């Protein structure tokens, strides 16, 4: 006993492994927790289990062959991922997309944003023990899948966009069905709110938990609904608009301590949850506007067979469901990109975990991961 020095024996710290196989981490993520009883000292993330080297693959494919890979970067909001890549390449090549194609693009992107947020908030609710609201959202997602399947033939990974437009047109029957769905969808969202968003136990579980204030968000590069919940009014669709977003009329929800009466502060998990729900309502508005003003025309611009952009590099941000998805493309004049980098919102959110997780309960860590809406393929690409 006399040989043990004080440095070697730790009484308070227990190292736990919240491993890759875990029902609550959204995807294949691993956390090494250092805890003191129930309270965490830090949670160190360990990523790379889903690394598929998409950026290296892009260096051997032409620009139009790369679209299926963009789906798989974020399979829950695949249309938004498609749009990010299409906007970047079209800006490099200087191609102008016809109006009808732009409207259809925005329609599918917003539908996918609703679907992705449904999974995001539903997964947060089901991690906290309320299984029924998640399944209600999945039921609504089935309707969205049906309409997207009528549009492009696939349910989850669409490969719908092409350089210069979309590759299948939108039928009038689908358009009417989507308009009818929007009415029912608003009522279902209201039911979801009454079921879980105004529930006292749920609010108490999320109020004041995992607070990330404005300065931390900006320093760590956290974007998207997480940034807006901290009070920063920044949305790529309004500040650096692309496509037809400057013609549409929609509001950007910003967090304002929605749970203040129950001990909530600006930038806590409940704010992030409510910002996503309000964004879903705004997306319904956008879909209605788009469908009412849909012009006639062609759906694909005339592009040359071999796309050879001029030498140079560009960084184009767009707003995906999880934040800013930006593409950095460096082209050397041939028809294959020399370097392509995908910047995703979940990556920045993961990188902030080591510092902000000091002082959580283990149960709060689960709420934090769910409220940041982290998807593993976005982190690892």
């Amino acid at each position, binding site marked *: 006993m006399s040989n043990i020095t004080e440095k070697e024996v730790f009484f308070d710290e227990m190292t736990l492994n919240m491993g890759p196989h875990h029902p609550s981490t959204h995807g294949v993520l691993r956390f090494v927790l250092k805890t003191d009883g129930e309270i965490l000292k830090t949670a160190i993330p360990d990523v790379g289990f889903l690394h598929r080297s998409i950026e290296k693959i892009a260096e051997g494919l032409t620009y139009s062959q790369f679209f299926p890979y963009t789906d798989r970067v974020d399979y829950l909001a695949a249309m938004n991922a498609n749009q990010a890549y299409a906007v970047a390449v079209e800006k490099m090549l200087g191609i102008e997309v016809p109006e009808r194609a732009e409207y259809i693009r925005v329609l599918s992107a917003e539908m996918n944003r609703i679907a992705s947020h449904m999974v995001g908030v539903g997964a947060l609710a089901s991690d*906290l*023990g309320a299984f*029924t609201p998640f*399944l209600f959202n999945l*039921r609504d997602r089935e309707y969205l899948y049906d309409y997207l399947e009528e549009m492009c033939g696939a349910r989850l990974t669409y490969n719908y966009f092409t350089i210069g437009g979309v590759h299948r047109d939108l039928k009038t029957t689908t358009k009417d069905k989507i308009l009818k769905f929007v009415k029912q969808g608003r*009522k279902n969202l*209201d039911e979801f709110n009454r079921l879980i968003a105004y529930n006292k*136990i749920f609010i108490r579980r999320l109020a004041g938990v995992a607070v990330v204030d404005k300065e931390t968000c900006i320093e760590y590069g956290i974007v998207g609904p997480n940034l807006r919940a901290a009070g920063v009014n920044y949305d790529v669709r309004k500040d650096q608009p692309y496509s037809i977003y400057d013609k549409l009329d929609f509001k950007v929800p910003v967090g304002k301590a929605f749970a203040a009466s129950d001990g909530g502060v600006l930038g806590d998990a409940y704010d992030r949850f409510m910002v996503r729900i309000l964004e879903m309502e705004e997306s319904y508005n956008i879909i209605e506007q788009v469908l009412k003003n849909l012009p006639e025309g062609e759906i694909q611009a005339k592009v040359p067979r071999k796309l050879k952009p001029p030498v140079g590099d560009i960084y184009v941000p767009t707003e995906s469901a999880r934040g800013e998805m930006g593409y950095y493309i460096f082209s050397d004049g041939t028809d294959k990109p020399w370097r392509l980098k995908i910047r995703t919102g979940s990556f920045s959110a993961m990188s902030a975990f080591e510092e902000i997780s000091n002082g959580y309960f283990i*149960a709060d860590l*689960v709420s934090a991961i769910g409220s940041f809406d982290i998807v593993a393929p976005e982190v690892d690409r």
Partner: protein
Amino acid sequence: MESIANSLIQSWGITSSTGAQLVSLLVMFGFASVVLLAFFLPFAGITSWLERRIAGRMQSRVGPNINGPQGFLQWIADGVKAMEKEDLMPDDADAPLFKMAPYFVFMGVGATLVAIPFSEYLVLSDLNVGIFYIISVTSFVTVGILLAGWSSNNKWSLIGGVRSASQMISYEIPTALSILTVVLLSGSLSMQDIVKAQGFWPWEWHISNNPFMIIMFFIFFISSLAEGSRTPFDLPEAESELVSGFNTEYSGIRFALFFLAEWGNLFVIGAMTTTLFLGGWQAPLALKGSMWLTPVQFMIFMTKMSVVVFIIIQLRWTLPRVRVDQLMIICWHYFVPLSLLSILAVTIWMAVSHGNSTIELVMSIFSTAIWLYFVLLVLYRAVRNFKRTDAKLNLNFLE
């Protein structure tokens, strides 16, 4: 039951010596346990089927509907599957404790069935300390869960076991205090006496005795949920946080025993609630002395118990989980002071009313009005929510 067993033994012509008394004791035990298991195990299984179907319909999907008519044989299939699985045990696990833990939990729940009255004559053993016996026997579950968490040699199970032990020990206090008020009102610890102190009509139940008994009913109900680890208090087995908590390392029939104990506990909670607060097996006085008495009493008991079980199942699939420290705050900051206050109020009320039946009747009808108002409010809200979503009530649950 005791008299039947005694008459059986005497018909075999055994004299009263110590050896024969021992044999008669063993025969009684064997008889009682056979009856217990034959009633308890199917009921636990049927509750599991009921829960899965109700959960499915609530989430706009169908539950199990393939094995047998309406999926009724699903629980038998699950039991057979659990029995034929490989019996794993971690290498460094504490073998005797690991094997003993499920039996503690199962025994803690099963032994309570001995004293529950299903009708005036259908009770396995009418102990004169009935309710006290039930409270003490349910503490075995805590021991079993602690053993399971510790002996699995797994940090996550340990956290789950310790959380669960602290939760169960804390919530025994409000449970016991609310039972104390019922005992005060009925004047005896025996379960049959508690039921006989109530009547058939809703204003003769213990819940309608005075408004504080409504508070006691809620505290008892919620504390029993916390004892049985049901959502919103199911942190020990929180699926998404600890991968099943203290029963992570269990497989096969040992795992099934934990879950049978949980569903059996639902049954026990329902039975206790109806016996203590909702009038038990009391049937209308007009039926006294007819041969329909026992079946009608049994049906009344089962109906009330099924309503309580249904509410518990619905609560599980609607509400999110409460966090560990919030759980403790609810118990110690709110429930314990409230129950102590209510005991004081009930004793004052009993001293004031002092057997004066008109005052008691007036107070009973007043309290009945209060809890009927809340029930009607819930129904009204449900109908209004339905209309708001334009949902259609699909009563065709046989498809």
